[in-house]
């Protein structure tokens, strides 16, 4: 059983097995940052459930400025120093956990940077008996260098501090984190530590030695069983994580028993900040699906947007775009429900696959979308839009096709109109890519040399390009026939656009200039996608400065602004019809 909670500025989930009484020992799960948090989100949910089943009530949280938590103030002087904010929020959450669970002692379990926070938080408290550190970041300095280098390779980010994905660290934050070194953390002698190490590096060995020298009991464990937590598997169903080594360690080292006091009542989670109010929603069959409803604080339109997962990232999105877009919409008087599709994030998978991360394209998301529309209609929203990025755009499109209640579609970098079982992203892109774009891609990053050295899969490329040429010739003739009225729309893409137009659905296709999906648009709708204009209500826009996944903060702001404007122009009324919240 897991209940959403708000603790200070954090959003979190409280896992229990539904019993009346609390427990002597409770566990706090501390996620990592950016990609580490995205990849491990579902695994940490399952770990929370497993710990709760073993008798350890467990809280997992999003720190301020991450996940679904509140935003830290921006553009203030001095800027927010995230390390201290996070440590303070973790400390507050630990107090909350002890209080609600009736626990006397705590175990902190952290992944990557979350492990670093957990260890430092443990140093400052007297009630922490155990620490489970999963692939911990041992030195802040090398971690900051990693993120700075990733930022530089991604968008040449050369700013003071660090601007990477959702993180915006001041120079002071970078300095403070760079000084953190787990070897210097003075854990209590009574502490029990399990180190699940990916790489037995020199700092890891030093750390184990330093803590043992202080009298701390340190168990060294491998990371192989936990490795799927950090695996960025893009397309197929994910392998479940084996938590037994971690569960065995905690049961053996820090056994628990029921507390004498019952659980304290947990208040429903509601988060607010100027401009928006958010509350978690369970919906769908047996309430297996999860979404975060974000409503304007003031007057609202009767429009609500369903924001689906991008790829297999959880509902808050890569670089937290799901959250920033939802709060941007709310500021314009538009509500949203950012959801996890079945088997992703905080939504339980279909029967028999409850512990499996569902496949990116090959899962049918239309029932989940219809269930989300039910939620919004029950709350009085008359017009529903679906939004998605990349694979999310594909599912939004199909949700719009399947459910006649959809009024608008906001599709960012739609990769394909149709997905066939067995397709791969790579093959689909090669199949739709024009020879000019293919060659221009090939001239990037020395791929020409690879081609000459025979290191590219020529057979696959040739097959895909041959398919593309045949399709292109066929589609050109079909388009001509359709324009002259000799035939109705034949291709799935054009049938779809015609059907959406006939229903009055407003469709916004937003692309980055170099996106592979544009080739598919040209293939279906002619040069520069000019044929899109024949479909009433459809708009194609190629926006300079965007990239496929909206890596930069400015890109995300531009995309959010364009989509909001599209909605208010096409669905909004001039006068906002009062507060629906």
């Amino acid at each position: 059983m897991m209940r959403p909670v708000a603790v200070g500025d954090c959003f979190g989930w409280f896992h229990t097995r539904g019993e009346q009484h609390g427990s002597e020992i409770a566990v706090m799960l501390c996620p990592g940052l950016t990609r580490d948090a995205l990849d491990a989100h579902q695994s940490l949910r399952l770990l929370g459930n497993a710990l709760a089943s073993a008798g350890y009530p467990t809280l997992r949280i999003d720190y301020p400025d991450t996940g679904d938590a509140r935003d830290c103030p921006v553009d203030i002087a001095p800027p927010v120093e995230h390390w201290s904010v996070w440590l303070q929020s973790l400390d507050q959450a630990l107090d909350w956990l002890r209080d609600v669970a009736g626990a006397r002692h705590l175990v902190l379990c952290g992944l990557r940077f979350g492990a670093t926070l957990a260890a430092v938080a443990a140093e400052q408290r007297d009630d922490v008996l155990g620490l489970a550190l999963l692939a911990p970041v041992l030195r802040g300095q090398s971690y900051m260098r990693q993120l700075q280098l990733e930022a530089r390779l991604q968008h040449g980010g050369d700013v003071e501090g660090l601007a990477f994905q959702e993180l915006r660290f001041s120079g002071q934050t970078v300095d403070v984190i760079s000084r953190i070194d787990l070897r210097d953390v003075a854990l209590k002698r009574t502490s029990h530590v399990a180190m699940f190490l990916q790489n037995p590096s020199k700092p890891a060995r030093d750390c184990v030695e330093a803590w043992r020298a202080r009298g701390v009991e340190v168990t060294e464990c491998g990371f192989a069983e936990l490795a799927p937590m950090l695996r960025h598997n893009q397309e197929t169903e994910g392998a479940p994580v084996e938590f037994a080594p971690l569960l065995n360690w905690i049961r053996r080292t820090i056994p628990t028993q029921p507390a004498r006091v019952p659980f304290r009542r947990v208040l429903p989670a509601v988060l607010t900040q100027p401009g928006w109010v958010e509350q978690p929603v369970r919906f769908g069959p047996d309430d297996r699906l999860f979404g975060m409803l974000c409503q304007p604080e003031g007057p609202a339109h009767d429009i609500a947007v369903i924001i689906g997962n991008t790829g297999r990232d959880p509902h808050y999105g890569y670089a937290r775009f799901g959250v920033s877009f939802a709060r941007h919409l709310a500021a314009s008087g538009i509500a949203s429900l950012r959801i996890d599709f079945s088997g992703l994030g905080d939504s339980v998978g279909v029967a028999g696959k409850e512990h499996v991360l569902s496949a990116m394209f090959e899962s049918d998301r239309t029932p989940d979308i219809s269930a989300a529309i039910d939620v919004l209609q029950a709350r009085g929203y008359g017009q529903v839009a679906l939004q998605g990025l990349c694979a999310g755009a594909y599912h939004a499109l199909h949700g719009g096709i399947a459910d006649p209640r959809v009024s608008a579609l906001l599709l960012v970098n739609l990769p394909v109109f149709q997905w066939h079982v067995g397709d791969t992203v790579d093959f689909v892109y090669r199949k739709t890519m024009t020879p000019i774009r293919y060659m221009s891609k090939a001239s990037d990053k020395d791929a020409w040399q690879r081609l000459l050295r025979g290191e590219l899969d020529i057979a696959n490329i040739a097959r895909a390009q041959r398919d593309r040429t045949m399709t292109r010739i066929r589609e050109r003739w079909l388009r001509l026939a359709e324009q002259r009225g000799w035939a109705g729309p034949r291709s799935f893409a054009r049938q779809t656009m015609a059907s959406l137009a006939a229903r009055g659905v407003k469709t916004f296709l937003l692309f980055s200039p170099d996106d592979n999906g544009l080739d598919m648009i040209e293939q279906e709708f002619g040069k520069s996608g000019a044929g899109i204009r024949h479909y009433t209500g459809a708009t194609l826009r190629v926006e300079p400065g965007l990239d496929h996944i909206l890596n930069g903060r400015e890109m995300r702001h531009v995309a959010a602004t364009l989509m909001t404007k599209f909605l208010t122009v096409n669905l909004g009324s001039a006068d906002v019809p009062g507060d629906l919240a």
Partner: protein
Amino acid sequence: MSVRAIILQQIDIVAAQQHKILKPLSDDLHLIDSGLDSLCLAILVANLDDELGLDPFGTGDDVPIPVTVGDLITLYENAEA
């Protein structure tokens, strides 16, 4: 172990963790052709900071991103000198 040996060992470790298939490593192999992506390269630099105590990208100069495996090794060997 020499700086070179540690770098080559760490490349193997990072590639294995990230499930990347490495090309046979040689000095003139372009990093972009090695099988490593940008995340791997960033993790590699963090690991080398941990193992060698060297952070050539943190010198404050605008250090160019190394192009080949040989460039990467030279960068660290020079930082050690």
